[in-house]
């Protein structure tokens, strides 16, 4: 992960109608708080990051239906495409990222990979272990109603919170992601 790759990621994501917020770990909670529109639901974040109070965990189907915003973590991000990789889990991340109009995805800068090949390579063993994931690029969309419409069955807005460690924010290469804080 290099500074160039991060800015490539930001460009590609914005080209696909997503917005990227580059923040330090200690700013994550406040950034999410700023980005959510109530009512908001979420799934507890890994990596020692906290959701703001305004985001309710353990949503019911009724909550999912009513929520304006859903907050989840993303496992990887792809610089060439501006995609985030959303892994399914027992906590219901898939539904939380899908039902509300606005999805806030939290991804670590160390988990940005350059291209599709690298992303799929990283996913290979994970999928062989039984995991599922969605490569999500921008909001849902359709061209079936006579014109391009952003926001179809899924979210209409995607906000990506890109979490950068201090040295990453200085533009230094942080090397491969460290094992201690990975979520496996």
């Amino acid at each position, binding site marked *: 992960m290099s500074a160039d790759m991060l800015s490539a990621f930001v460009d590609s994501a914005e080209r696909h109608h997503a917005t990227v917020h580059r923040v330090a770990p200690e700013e994550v909670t406040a950034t999410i708080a700023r980005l959510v529109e109530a009512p908001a639901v979420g799934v507890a974040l890994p990596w020692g990051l906290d959701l703001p109070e305004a985001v309710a965990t353990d949503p*019911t*189907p009724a909550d999912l239906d009513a929520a304006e915003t859903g907050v989840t973590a993303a496992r990887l991000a792809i610089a060439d495409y501006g995609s985030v990789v959303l892994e399914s889990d027992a*906590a219901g991340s898939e539904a939380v990222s899908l039902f509300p109009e606005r999805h806030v995805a939290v991804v670590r800068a160390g988990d940005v990979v350059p291209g599709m090949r690298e992303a799929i390579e990283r996913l290979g063993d*994970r999928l062989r272990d039984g*995991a599922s994931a969605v*490569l999500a*690029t921008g909001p849902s969309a359709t061209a079936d109603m*006579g014109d391009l419409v952003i926001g179809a069955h*899924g979210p209409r807005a995607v906000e990506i919170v890109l979490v950068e460690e201090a040295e990453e924010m200085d533009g230094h290469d942080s090397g491969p992601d460290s094992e201690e804080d990975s979520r496996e």
Partner: protein
Amino acid sequence: MSKSKSRAETAARIRHLLDTEGDAVAENTRGFNRGRYESVRELDDYESLKSAARAIKEDAIERIPELIDELRESVEANGGHLYVAADPAEANAYVREVVDGGNVVKSKSMTTEELDLNDALEADGAAVTETDLGEWVLQLADETPSHIVGPAVHKSREGIADLFAETFGLDDDDRPETAEELTRFAREKLLADIREAEVGVTGANFLAADSGTLALVTSEGNARKTAVVPDTHVAVAGVEKVIPTVEDLAPFVELIGRSGTGQDITSYVSLLTPPVSSPPVDFGEADSPVAERGAAGGDGATDPHPDREFHLVLVDNGRLDLREDDDLRETLYCIRCGACSNSCGNFQSVGGHAFGGETYSGGIATGWEAGVEGLDTAAEFNDLCTGCSRCVPACPVEIDIPWINTVVRDRINRGDAADGEGSGSVGFLVDGLTPDEEPAGLDPAKRLFGNFETLAKLGSATAPLSNLVANARPVRGAMDRWLGITRERDLPAFERETLVDWFDARGGPRVSEGLARREAVVYPDVYTNHVAVDRGRAAVRTLEALGVRVTVPESTAVGSGRAPLSQGMVETARRKAERCRDALLPEVDAGRDVVVIEPSDLAAFEREYERLLPADDAERVADGCFEVLEYVYGLLENGADPGGLTTAEDAGGRARVAYHPHCQGKTLDLEPYTVAVLERLGYEVDTSETECCGMAGSFGYKSEYYELSMDVGEPLSEQFGDAERVLASGTSCREQLDALLGSPAEHPIEAIAPGE
């Protein structure tokens, strides 16, 4: 039914579709096609990704049985079930048992269309809702898809607004109108059905044997809801969807959206390894948390959720037989991206309701329908592939789609003969004129066009009388009635003096052996030799001005086989190819370059001869042949002096030229040479963006297709309507441009050739 009656019916049906659906289809498909060009341009490794994708499919289809076994192990190890259905009846019976009359939501799946699964489920009382917005529109309208990727491309926004208003009894005040309002409305309605669903049915774009993962490529998000909300997921896919590993997905993910709709990637590529770990969203218990309380992101990600059930139904339905078919096997490499539909002139005009069968549409539909439904279904629309070949570079898995159409056409020709259908009263006449390798009952129009070479020889020998007779009104009437040759078109006028005769009469080569920069044969193709002799003379003069010792041997005045090939007369084409090879290879062996004027003949040499001749011969012919402007380009690059050629300055005020490259020439990447040469000589070139002019050899002459052919050419009249000087490389493009613009186009070689 007589042929002329069925021709009239075909013409009427096409006219109806042009009027009712043509505009919406044209706007959508041309938009997708433009998007594809832009989107693949961003990929540095586009060609190598295509080759990688192709290689993966070749290997996977080769190993289908073994990969299905591996996939079964993976799916069962995850706790799912895999069932291989031989035919629609078996597939539907299996799904019906799982569904058991419950509520079903579906995401878009062509394979379930092929099975008529919805009808089968509804017969059991199940409520089945399509959740893809396009598919839902068609479900409400009770129509069939007109495009494999955008099923409702034939519907306009206004049409959809009316449909919703009518179906749901909305009054003028609250009826949705804008695309945005229509989408909202549909989302809300469909969410209600998704909440109630007991089973979600999806297709699969790819299935990875090593993990049991299925890939779903979508943008709306409905496939995600379909798979995640109900606790039971049924995926239905053809056996050809299996690929060996997860890693093999990478090139397809990069190519599929770009090729189809011009999106570099769709909003969602779901990689589901079902039964998935996500908890079902049970709206029956709307107030109980979806997951265990306190669960955090990443928990249990690799464990199937205990309440989930998954069934994968793999459908054979003719595919394993296709796999054994050396000519049609490639069909199974198809990833259903839709690029062959979008890049096709005919499809852009008329859409999949004409250019399609029971389920599939566009160029590759011929292969699918022949394999899945049978030749009769493929025969209904196979004529609409003109062999223009514009889909070939567009196809992400490098399928030779025109060849599949040619082979199927050949089989249809032969099948027709077998049931002894009559061929009209002039059939015998045409038969006598044109001895060929084809079955006796072959449609006489096909036979006539396929044997154009014989006709041309006769035409030149008896010109100008032949032209007068052919154009006489009663004759045109009879041609229309019996052969289906439209009265609307001018017939090609044969020249009394052929190119070969002209060259001989002029006294042979003019550049001496000693001074020659190179030696070349100008290939007197049938059109250049008998009809468009001017461009042949221009080619000779141009090459001579550049120091080439040119000959035009009588021995090489033989057809390439292009004409019979375009009619699906493969054996006749093969015989012609052999004869042409025997004429050209001695020239090549003697160190002479073969210069070809007609792009469709060069395309035969470079693309089809490998199907018709031994590989070695085909390669030698292909290597020895050059398109005329490509050859001029090479000469100029190697230092030939363009001083003798006609520059833009010499041409006075006629320096701006509009140029329509020939479809097959474009596929061979010839366009840049012509443009470069013209620019080097000072011309300002405005190149057409149209894939094919719509004439496509004999296609535009056929009564039933005349209107379609003119419609396909419409963008050319829009772009070139005001052009002062129009250049076109192909003879049929020339005729079409003449018909569209009212003034004849010249071959680019005529623009640059020295004066006579």
